[in-house]
């Protein structure tokens, strides 16, 4: 496994933006593992149309920056376009800065303020990466702009980075429902982080049997990275999902 540098995020304000943690580092390790490098190189060879790589929920931008800076190792070439989405505009500003200070080799387009993949056109994304708000909570926090409609509930950007509703799956389920539309038909692939409390084997089974989205696509699903103590309450896994 190549040892690639972790992007510098020392400029980021962790009072309102998620600080790179065990889950972020598991994504970096998994996306630069021998098995994933070989999968991605074969899927996105240099002579073909540029792949569009989207990270949803970029936070500090550490994962998207890692992919943009190390594109020649991970994809075998620098001919990639990277794009970020976060509901938090401060996170998007932080991502812009993280990428520009970590010597990007692939081409970074933009970070957009949006709710999951809502502004993207169908079939656009070739590789999607999502470190969701996966911690089980009784309900979801409000989004920026919803303060008045929700009777003055206070916006908490940090809570938005982790609170996932029942099973920690409310937001992830919505993203998984949208994969059939947003991923490109011929070569789309997604990397999703799940924790043990998300009941990941059941999620994988729902994906394999076509129970996400409207088209009933039977996805191929494989666990390609994991960390955490088995006795501890947070055991993390990275799941690769592809057609």
């Amino acid at each position, binding site marked *: 496994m190549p040892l690639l540098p972790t992007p510098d995020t020392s400029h980021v304000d962790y009072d309102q933006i998620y600080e790179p943690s065990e889950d972020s580092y598991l994504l970096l390790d998994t996306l630069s593992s021998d098995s994933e490098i070989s999968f991605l190189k074969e899927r996105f060879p240099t002579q*073909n*149309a*540029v792949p*569009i790589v989207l990270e949803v929920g970029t936070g500090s931008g550490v994962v998207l920056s890692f992919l943009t800076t190390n594109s020649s190792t991970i994809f075998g070439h*620098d*001919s990639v*376009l990277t*794009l970020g989405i976060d*509901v938090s*505009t401060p996170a*998007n*500003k932080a991502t*812009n800065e993280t990428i520009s200070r970590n010597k990007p080799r692939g*081409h970074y*387009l*933009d*970070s*957009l*303020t*949006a*709710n999951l993949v*809502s*502004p*993207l*056109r*169908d079939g*656009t994304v070739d590789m999607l990466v999502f470190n969701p708000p996966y911690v089980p909570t009784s309900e979801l926090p409000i*989004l*920026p*702009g*919803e303060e008045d*409609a929700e009777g003055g509930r206070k916006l908490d950007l940090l809570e938005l980075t982790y609170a996932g509703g029942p099973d920690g799956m409310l937001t992830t389920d919505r993203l998984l429902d949208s994969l059939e539309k947003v991923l490109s038909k011929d070569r789309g692939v997604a990397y999703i982080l799940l924790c043990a409390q998300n009941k990941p084997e059941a999620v994988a089974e729902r994906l394999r049997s076509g129970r996400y989205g409207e088209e009933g696509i039977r996805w191929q699903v494989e666990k390609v990275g994991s960390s955490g103590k088995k006795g501890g309450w947070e055991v993390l896994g990275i799941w690769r999902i592809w057609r």
Partner: protein
Amino acid sequence: MKILTTNYISCAVKACKSTSLSFPLHFQDAVLVQEEVDFKPEFITNILPRIEWEALKITAVELGFTTLPAQKPEATEEAPLDPQVLKDLHTLLLETQVTEGKLVCANCKHVYNIHQGIANFLLPNHLALPLIMITNF
């Protein structure tokens, strides 16, 4: 926000996705800046298959770029792409950024603001819900 990005997005309102009017979104009051990016002709060539040309032409004209070819340039074995065409595309797609302005959907007329180069696609609650939930209220 880079011009190439606008070729990959449409209106965030779910009901607009199925209409051709929701793409491309239309610029209003756009403030442009140019930022130099290394020119790699082969990279632009690899981007071309990922571009909806008709939509790009509309966006380009709205921003005052009127030199795009009528048809998407395609390289053949006898005739590789004109380096000047690739350079012009490089300037438009990757070096031109919208720092302030609006993107408007021609279907629902919703306005998305761009501020400090970051476009905001968050919707007010009544637009973010699926239609069926609104009619059930």
